[in-house]
């Protein structure tokens, strides 16, 4: 992890306590986002000078206690027990002291130097809360500093207290909590075992560690503990349970009893009138008004991702095309030009084109999260999500999947538990994203033009069916993955509903920008590499024979053409045909031929096969690849010659390739197949290994093939096509 030389100061706290806001305020927004080794929880850190010392400030994942019950909390616990942790700033939301002080109490008890930052003091004062921080500091044997992180109030006092804690001797006094007599006896029995294991630590630490072991028994966090210690703890725990004692309760209740006394001594009673949040909630979680507002907010996000991002995406695409023309003009024709134009510039364009949607989605999610509404979204929709084994917080990522799976996969990080996050991430690429639409339009325009089903146009029915199918398949896939690949208890739903607060625009922007940077660096490199690889696959080997043949043909046209315009036209047509022939000769083209026997049963031929291979770059590339395959040159989904070429395409036996049935089969294939390397790249980034993107690609491809097979073969049996 980090090098031993730089001492760490951690910022810890409950979720929603304003921990990250304080981190940003202290670090001035200049954070380094890395990864904890082996897992994909962001490790946000910044270097900071405290007095004469240079320290690394680390923002650890939110947690309620040191008893880790999820891998994320485990990381926070690990960070706290690491050797180079010098002090902890524990952030507490001043409006929820009665619970919020549990974590700092536990930290102080463990002997690590702590500074308690009582955050959101302004909000606390508004509800009439007065806190005697001096007395609280005495009781906690640690400085308690009132701050307002969003307004940067109290930061100097906080840093001053931190500097003192860093200078203080390692032997810090801790509040002594009185535990029941039986528990003290248990602890006394475990202490010697721990003392043998860690003779170098202070005696008070052995006691704290004994308590922590008793409470964490059975959790992963005890894995690093030697067997003899674990056995000693387990046998004492068993004996206690046998006598009807509840050790968890004894420990936790004693701490809360101490806390309750401290709070009642130092804090005034809060205003009992319903708070502002309470009044807002009466509307926002109302059975009718609440659902209506929910629908409007979700639609707003959807609209922004779909339509709002469109001009920006268009501008990026235009800029990419412009760069390509420029490069083509500067560089001499040949492999280098192709590599730069179709490999590198196209690849960079493929990465940047996601930026508008990622920024927008993360600004939205940041707003929902920081304002407190995201917890209400989960609250309102959890009932529906639970049915397929998903968490209520999976809703926003799933919905975003309609626009684009890439930002949607990134959005799963609002879901706390890794298992729940993975299930969501592996199911949502089945949502019919906006890149599938051009393909539906091409197919519908080719095979259903002018046809109708009853009152409706056949194309509209086909489109509607695709979207409905995508929702059903996504939910079904989530349910199946939850039961088979990632079995485990259904996600528990213990979710704090934070008070509503107005988010800070600066923090929203910092966070969205940080997410975008991670995407550009981590997923971007993979996307760029795959674009170049795909370009090579569809460009090489080049056939000298084809080049010569077309050169001769050009010669012939040059000499025989009757007019200048007919010559240009003939030459352009020739360029298109040559590109098509070269593509057919390339590795990708040959691969398309090779898999034709597998494509026939689902109604496709080798040309569509090549299109599918090209479409791995991004689904919409299917259309431009088909344009090349059919020797038309550049084409979009409204391109008439391409539609005509598709209608004219024939199998070897003379039957048409594109029938309504094979059209439906093609749409179903594109709906279900993972024809998107960017999704693969972002799932790799967010899951932390190649295992999950490979699984995703495999299961979606198999599913797509089987579904298309069922459609085509079933349809033929029923007499269609």
């Amino acid at each position, binding site marked *: 992890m980090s090098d031993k030389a730089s001492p760490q100061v951690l910022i810890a706290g409950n979720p929603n306590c304003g921990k990250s806001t304080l981190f940003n305020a202290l670090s001035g927004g200049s954070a380094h986002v890395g990864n904890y080794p082996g897992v994909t929880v962001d490790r946000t850190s910044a270097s900071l000078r405290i007095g004469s010392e240079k320290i690394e400030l680390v923002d650890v994942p939110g947690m309620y206690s040191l008893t880790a019950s999820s891998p994320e909390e485990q990381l926070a616990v690990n960070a706290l027990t690491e050797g180079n942790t010098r002090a902890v700033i524990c952030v507490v939301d001043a409006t929820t002291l009665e*619970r919020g002080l549990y974590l700092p109490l536990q930290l102080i008890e463990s002997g690590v130097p702590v500074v308690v930052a009582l955050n959101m003091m302004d909000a606390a004062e508004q509800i009439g809360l007065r806190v005697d921080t001096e007395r609280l500091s005495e009781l906690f044997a640690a400085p308690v500093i009132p701050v307002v992180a969003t307004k940067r109030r109290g930061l100097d006092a906080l840093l001053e207290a931190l500097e003192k804690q860093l200078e203080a001797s390692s032997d810090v006094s801790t509040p002594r909590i009185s535990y029941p007599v039986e528990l003290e006896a248990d602890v006394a029995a475990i202490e010697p075992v721990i003392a043998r294991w860690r003779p170098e630590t202070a005696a008070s630490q052995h006691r704290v560690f004994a308590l922590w072991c008793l409470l964490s028994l059975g959790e992963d966090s005890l894995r690093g503990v030697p067997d003899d210690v674990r056995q000693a703890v387990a046998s004492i725990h068993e004996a206690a349970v046998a006598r009807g004692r509840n050790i968890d309760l004894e420990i936790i209740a004693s701490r809360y009893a101490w806390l309750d006394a401290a709070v009642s001594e130092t804090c005034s009673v809060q205003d009992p009138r319903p708070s502002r949040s309470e009044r807002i909630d009466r509307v926002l979680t109302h059975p009718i008004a609440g659902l209506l507002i929910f629908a409007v907010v979700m639609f707003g996000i959807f609209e922004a991702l779909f339509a709002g991002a469109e001009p920006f995406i268009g501008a990026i695409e235009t800029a990419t095309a412009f760069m390509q023309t420029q490069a083509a003009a500067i560089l001499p024709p040949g492999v280098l030009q192709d590599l730069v134009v179709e490999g590198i510039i196209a690849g960079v364009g493929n990465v940047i084109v996601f930026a508008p949607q990622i920024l927008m989605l993360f600004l939205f999610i940041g707003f929902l999260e920081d304002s407190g509404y995201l917890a209400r979204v989960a609250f309102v*929709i959890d009932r529906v999500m639970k049915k397929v084994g998903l968490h209520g917080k999976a809703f926003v990522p799933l919905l975003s999947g309609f626009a684009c799976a890439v930002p949607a996969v990134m959005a799963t990080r609002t879901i706390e538990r890794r298992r729940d996050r993975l299930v969501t991430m592996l199911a949502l690429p089945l949502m019919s994203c906006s890149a599938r639409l051009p393909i539906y339009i091409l197919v519908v325009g080719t095979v259903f033009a002018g046809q109708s089903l009853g009152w409706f146009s056949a194309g509209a029915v086909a489109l509607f069916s695709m979207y409905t199918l995508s929702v059903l398949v996504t939910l079904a896939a989530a349910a199946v993955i939850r039961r088979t690949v990632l079995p485990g208890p259904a996600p528990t739903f213990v979710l704090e509903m934070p008070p509503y607060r107005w988010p800070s625009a600066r923090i929203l922007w910092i966070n969205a920008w940080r997410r975008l940077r991670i995407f550009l660096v981590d997923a971007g490199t993979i996307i760029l590499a795959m674009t170049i690889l795909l370009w090579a696959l569809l460009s090489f080997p080049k056939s000298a024979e084809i080049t010569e043949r077309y050169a001769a043909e050009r010669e012939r046209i040059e000499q025989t053409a009757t007019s200048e315009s007919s010559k240009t036209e003939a030459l352009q047509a020739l360029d298109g045909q040559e590109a098509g022939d070269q593509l057919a000769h390339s590795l990708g083209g040959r691969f398309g031929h090779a898999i034709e026997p597998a494509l026939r049963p689902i109604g496709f031929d080798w040309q569509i096969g090549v299109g599918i291979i090209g479409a791995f770059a991004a689904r919409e590339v299917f259309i431009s690849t088909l344009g090349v395959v059919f020797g038309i040159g550049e084409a979009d989904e409204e391109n008439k010659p391409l539609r005509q070429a598709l209608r004219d395409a024939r199998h070897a036996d003379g039957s048409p390739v594109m029938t309504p049935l094979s059209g439906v089969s093609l749409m179903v294939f594109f709906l279900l197949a993972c024809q998107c390397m960017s999704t693969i790249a972002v799932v790799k980034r967010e899951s932390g290994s190649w295992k999950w993107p490979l699984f995703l690609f495999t299961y979606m491809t198999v599913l797509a093939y089987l579904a298309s097979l069922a459609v085509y073969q079933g349809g033929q049996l029923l007499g269609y096509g």
Partner: protein
Amino acid sequence: MKPSLVDLPLGQHAKIVSIDCERRLSRRLMEMGLLPGTRVRLVRVAPFGDPVELRVRNYSLSLRRAEAAKIAVRPEGEA
């Protein structure tokens, strides 16, 4: 049968008597301040009937019905 959190009428204050769910969850709830003797109140039910929201120690917590049903309570005003 002891009444549980979900049996409470909305807004009725009560004291927790016991938490009888699996250890990991009960420990989490206890660490979040839900202990025997702690005052709670059911604040609202989600539009689709589940989960429920409760108010405890000056903060709001939502739980699924199934879990809330394992928290036994004694309504205030009863002996």
